[in-house]
């Protein structure tokens, strides 16, 4: 298969996707250059503050992408995707806690500070292995994937679907949130994991580390986008869309719809886990708040706002909502919730296909208003 062939397969004749890919690649390449190579007093300089901010947006974008894969293409609305994101984050966070080693405030050679403080005498079994990066990295993929597999297997096998699925996925993340809040669980309770020092020996506060993490986030997003495109463009993607549109029919035709759903749900969870793992080192904290049901709803809102079922719409939604949030919380702290809430309502009512649907909607309206006149003319030739 030649390179053009692959790109054709991935992008099809979808201009939106092409422009999107170009933009993300440009962003991934340009931001580091503008940060490092351009002097700070130049108007083109991107401050470090912006680099980590954009890095955070990219992680959210990846998370939104994972939700769009299942919601937009398979009709599975998960209100618990924040859980996979958080688990990925915890996995890498545990690694970074172990990296601190004896440099904690109590100077314990092995135990993180919060464990010393809460009278743990030895590392609980589920923290073993996290001193090795490869193990933590594997866990970033395995833990959310496995949880999604088990949860999905239970749910899809017994044909739990629609809002029922949404609500029990919410119950799952809610239960996990309560569990992680418990200090007895050994994950740092409400404070979660913080005060990370370095990752793979690189200081997290160094500019180079930040840029690297940013680039990794960009690359992960591009890679995930390619993977999702590959899945939805394949034969399997057709089946997924068939399940989305008429699950019973797809099942009657002979497809094991539960297996398809299970597969795509697990892939999506893994992507969310990776997003979490990239997010945590950039913001420096992971705590049970990420499990909160409201956060998961927010993710769905990003996707719906950007436009579901397009993949790049989800990315656009995640980035624009979060950019607006950053902007409004500084500019208009007292009223930003009015603006954000109002925007959600407006977009849902006025733009059912999200921001990416805007262009098509406008085009259709233009076409309609153009098409209307001749019809009227036909009906009443005299006027």
């Amino acid at each position, binding site marked *: 298969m030649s390179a053009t062939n692959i790109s054709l397969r991935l992008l099809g004749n979808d201009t939106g996707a092409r422009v999107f890919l170009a933009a993300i690649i440009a962003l991934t390449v340009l931001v580091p250059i503008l940060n490092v190579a351009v002097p700070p007093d130049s108007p083109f300089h991107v401050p470090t503050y912006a680099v980590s901010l954009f890095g955070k947006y990219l992680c959210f974008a990846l998370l939104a992408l994972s939700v769009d894969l299942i919601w937009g293409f398979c009709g599975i*609305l998960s209100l618990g995707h924040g859980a996979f994101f958080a688990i990925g984050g915890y996995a890498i966070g545990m690694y970074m806690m172990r990296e601190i080693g004896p440099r904690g405030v109590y100077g314990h050679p092995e135990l993180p500070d919060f464990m010393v403080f809460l009278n743990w005498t030895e590392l609980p079994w589920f923290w073993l292995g996290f001193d090795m990066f490869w193990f933590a990295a594997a866990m970033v993929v395995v833990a959310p994937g496995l949880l999604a597999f088990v*949860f999905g297997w*239970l*749910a899809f*096998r*017994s*044909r*739990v*679907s*629609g*809002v*029922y699925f*949404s*609500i*029990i996925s*919410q*119950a*799952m993340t*809610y*239960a996990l949130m*309560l*569990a992680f*809040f*418990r200090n007895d669980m050994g994950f740092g309770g409400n404070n979660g994991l913080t005060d990370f020092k370095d990752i793979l020996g690189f200081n997290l506060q160094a500019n180079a580390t930040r840029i690297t993490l940013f680039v990794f986030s960009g690359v992960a997003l591009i890679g995930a986008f390619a993977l999702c495109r590959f899945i939805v463009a394949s034969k399997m993607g057709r089946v997924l869309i068939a399940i989305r549109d008429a699950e*019973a029919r797809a099942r009657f035709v002979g497809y094991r719809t539960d297996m398809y759903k299970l597969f795509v749900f697990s892939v999506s969870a893994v992507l969310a886990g990776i997003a979490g793992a990239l997010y945590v080192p950039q913001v420096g904290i992971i705590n049970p708040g990420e499990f909160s*049901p*409201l956060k998961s*709803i927010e993710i*769905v*809102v990003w996707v*719906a*706002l950007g436009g579901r079922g397009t993949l790049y719409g989800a990315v656009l939604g995640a980035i624009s909502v979060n950019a607006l949030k950053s902007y409004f919380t500084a500019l208009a702290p*007292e*009223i930003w*919730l*009015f603006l*954000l*809430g*109002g*925007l*959600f*309502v407006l*977009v*849902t*009512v006025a733009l*059912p296909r999200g921001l990416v649907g805007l262009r098509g909607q406008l085009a259709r309206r233009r076409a309609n208003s153009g098409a209307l006149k001749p019809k009227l003319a036909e009906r009443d030739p005299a006027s």
Partner: protein
Amino acid sequence: MNFIRTFLAGLLVVLAAAMATPAPVSAGELEDRVKALDAKNFAGKGKAIEALEALADPAALPVLRAMQEGLLFREKATKRIVIGVKAARSFEIFDALSGEALGVVKKRKLKKISVNNRLRGRLRLAIGALALTSGDAAARSSAAKALVKDADPTILPALDRALAREQEVEVAAVMGVARAAIQAKGGEKSARLAAISALEGVLDREVMVVLGTLSQAANEPDAEIRALATETLAATEASGRYYGMLETLFFGVSLGSVLLLAAIGLAITFGVMGVINMAHGEMIMLGAYTTYVIQQVFPGAIEYSLAIAVPVAFLVSGAVGVVLERSVIRFLYGRPLETLLATFGISLVLQQAVRSIFSPLNRSVITPDWMSGALEVNAALSLTYNRLTIIIFTFVLLLMIAALLRYSSFGLRMRAVTQNRAMASAMGIRTNWVDALTFGFGSGIAGIAGVALSQLTNVGPNLGQQYIVDSFMVVVFGGVGNIWGTTLGAMTLGIANKVMEPWSGAVLGKILILVFIILFIQKRPSGMFALKGRAAEN
């Protein structure tokens, strides 16, 4: 039985006791001792209270009561001890002993005679001793109860006098128990043993405290008394355990009815209409704020405020619901998941609106007197009035909703539209308006729930968020679109939670419940009561 026995035993002792009445007190001495209450420190005040109590003059009662409630002041100019009652920004003052009105003064003219917890306990005892022979039956009964825990045998003569004079059998029984409990604490050994046996089966916590104290080696040197106390306590606790189970059940039903209240509006908007209404919690919040506003507008009618608030909250939340339906939700029918997005936006807006109007602070909603306190079934089982009221209220509300849906023409139309919109429309039902009214109805019910919840929890901008997740769980667990399912779901979850809480702890209990719901949905993918027929496929 035991009460009577103790009573008779007490009576015998009383007859034997000399009926010495205290010598009349000179007015001057009483006044001096009242003045002494304004001592510099708490220890001094404690002594003064004892001195005043020793006079055994009922005239001191109002003074002691005022002191306990923090209403006793010294007028700075005249150094008189006065009782002050707050009136607007100043105080209306009365002479402490004569009760003569002395006019209205500014707060800074008065110095409060402060008390702390230890003094309050001391005062309660003193008031108890004095009130034994005066006041109405309830006052005498509570005075006797107050003596059980703290009093020592020196009070026995006064108690005996009171017992001898007592006409009401019930009050006398309480006094008899108090007498036995006090007697058990010290004195002649055989009398103590008799007193302890007489206490068997008395479920009063204070009595159990007395027995508990006596059963510990640190407090009681005599092994025989210790053994008897332990035995008696064990026997009493055994009968208490049965009531403990009833109490847990009550807690469970009470939690269940709170869940039901929160969820029942959602059962209509989500269950019947298919709107994933994330703003449901905010409708509850609006109802709670309505209660607050009503109490602010009618400060004189706190006792009736809830009765006024129920219909008003229904109208407020219902009107907001209708407006929402007409302006936003009607464009989203057939796209249930998108109603989630829009209503989530609405919930953010409503929260912030409340924050802007009422400030982000919690608002204080006053509990009317008739909802405070507890109904004492017996000493071991008391049902708090606010919970009891809410349970009854919930079920009345539930019946009314069910009747409305079943028998009214609105209910008929509503059911018709949900079952077959096209057909209903063809029959001439204005489906638009039915939709709007149904949504308004569900929201209004949420508003009523808010009135009830304002009595249990914070009234603040985050009120709604606390209940939204739980409400969805209840509706889904019970089966979407079925009000009886919702009811049974709420009760099951409430009781299961409370039964598990003592051994699993509050957090783990809740987690287990959630896991249970997840697993249950696997077994019955459409909840306990699934709608039958084609509807289930959607």
